[in-house]
């Protein structure tokens, strides 16, 4: 170990922030090198000297007092809370900006029109005056409105008619389905009836046969 290498290690050694084996190397070096030994002793003395200045108590204590805010302070705290996250502050700001824009638009009668691919803006303190209509224009407008009414009535009638037809269709389909089901039921019942008759007939046939057999057996020995 060279003396130049010990500089930083001496700091580690002095403040006891050193690995065990490094501390051993430093001790070995100090044992053989009087210059470094001297230097280390001086550093140690300086360190001890410095610690003769103990911590002082601050002359004043710092205390944070809750502010009783003015009305504006209170409003500000509600509008812009100090510790609110950024997104909520941004959202709030955006909302306020939108409401302000709407209010300003209302006060200044802002109009925005879009026609023929162009936007047109208009603003003013007084609302836009209503243009007076001529008789001709009035009758034309009335005709237009009438026409529009007629069209609308026609559309309504058409719609009503279509709805009725649809309902009728629906009812017919229902009726057909019911009839079909009824017929199936009837057929089933008829089928069962026929089966029953057939069975009865069969049973009677067998009974008649047995009676004839007995009659034949009874009469045979007498002959």
């Amino acid at each position, binding site marked *: 170990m060279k003396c130049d290498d010990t*500089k*930083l290690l*001496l*700091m*580690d050694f002095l*403040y006891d*922030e050193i690995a065990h084996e490094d501390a051993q190397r430093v001790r070995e070096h100090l044992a053989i090198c009087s210059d470094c030994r001297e230097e280390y002793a*001086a*550093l140690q*003395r*300086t*360190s*001890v*000297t*410095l*610690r*003769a*200045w103990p*911590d*002082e*108590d*601050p*002359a*004043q*204590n*710092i*205390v*944070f007092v*809750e502010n009783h805010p003015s009305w504006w302070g209170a409003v500000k705290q509600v509008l812009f809370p*100090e*510790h609110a996250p950024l997104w909520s502050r941004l959202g709030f700001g955006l909302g306020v900006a939108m409401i302000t824009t709407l209010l300003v638009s209302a006060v200044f009668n802002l109009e925005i029109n879009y026609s023929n691919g162009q936007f047109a803006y208009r603003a003013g303190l007084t609302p836009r005056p209503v243009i007076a209509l001529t008789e001709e224009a009035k009758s034309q407008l009335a005709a237009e409105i009438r026409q529009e009414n007629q069209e609308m009535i026609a559309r309504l009638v058409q719609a009503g008619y279509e709805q009725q037809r649809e309902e009728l269709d629906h009812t017919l389909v229902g009726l057909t389905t019911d009839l079909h089901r009824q017929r199936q039921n009837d057929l089933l019942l008829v089928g069962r009836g026929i089966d029953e008759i057939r069975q009865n007939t069969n049973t009677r046939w067998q009974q008649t046969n047995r009676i004839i057999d007995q009659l034949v057996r009874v009469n045979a020995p007498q002959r």
Partner: protein
Amino acid sequence: MNDRDLIERFLRGEPSAFNTLVWRWQKTIYNFILRDIGNRDEAHDLTQQVFVRVYRNLDKLKNLERFSTWIYQIAANLCRDLIKQRRRRKLQSLEGMQEAGALELTNNAMLTLHSEDEQHPDRVVSRSQLRDLLEKALQEIPEEQRIVVVMKEYQNLKFTEIAEILGAPVNTVKSRLYYGLKALKKVLGRWQIDEEVVHYEM
């Protein structure tokens, strides 16, 4: 309750938790600043400023475990700004007066050291005089060395912690400490302040 709990309580809207945090840290921060800038009034001001900054920016501190590093960084930055300001002001007359004051004080201390009590010089350096001399001695060495000496000797911070606060490599920190101590040894030697005086005082 640790710092982290206090901060969380404060951020949830408990102002008293912040005062507890201040109460816990103000002596540490005040002494750190005082030893770095060497002026009690200014140290009070800066300590206050540190806590105002902490108050305003605590919600931006991402990792609450880093609070200690963070508050030291704020304090170190304020100290650095103040020292820059002092240098920029260059109020010749005021500086001259302060230097004269420092010299006078130093001469007084040395005078008392070399009075008829030469055989027992330690008897005549009062505790407050010794403190003043150490305060002046720290101001004699370069700022970047002084702040490391203060953090290590008085705040008992680890080399890695100091490196993180100052944003410097650990070896740079150790090197500054080494040269800082050597420079202090020189200054104190010039004023004949040594271990014997200190031992008596302690």
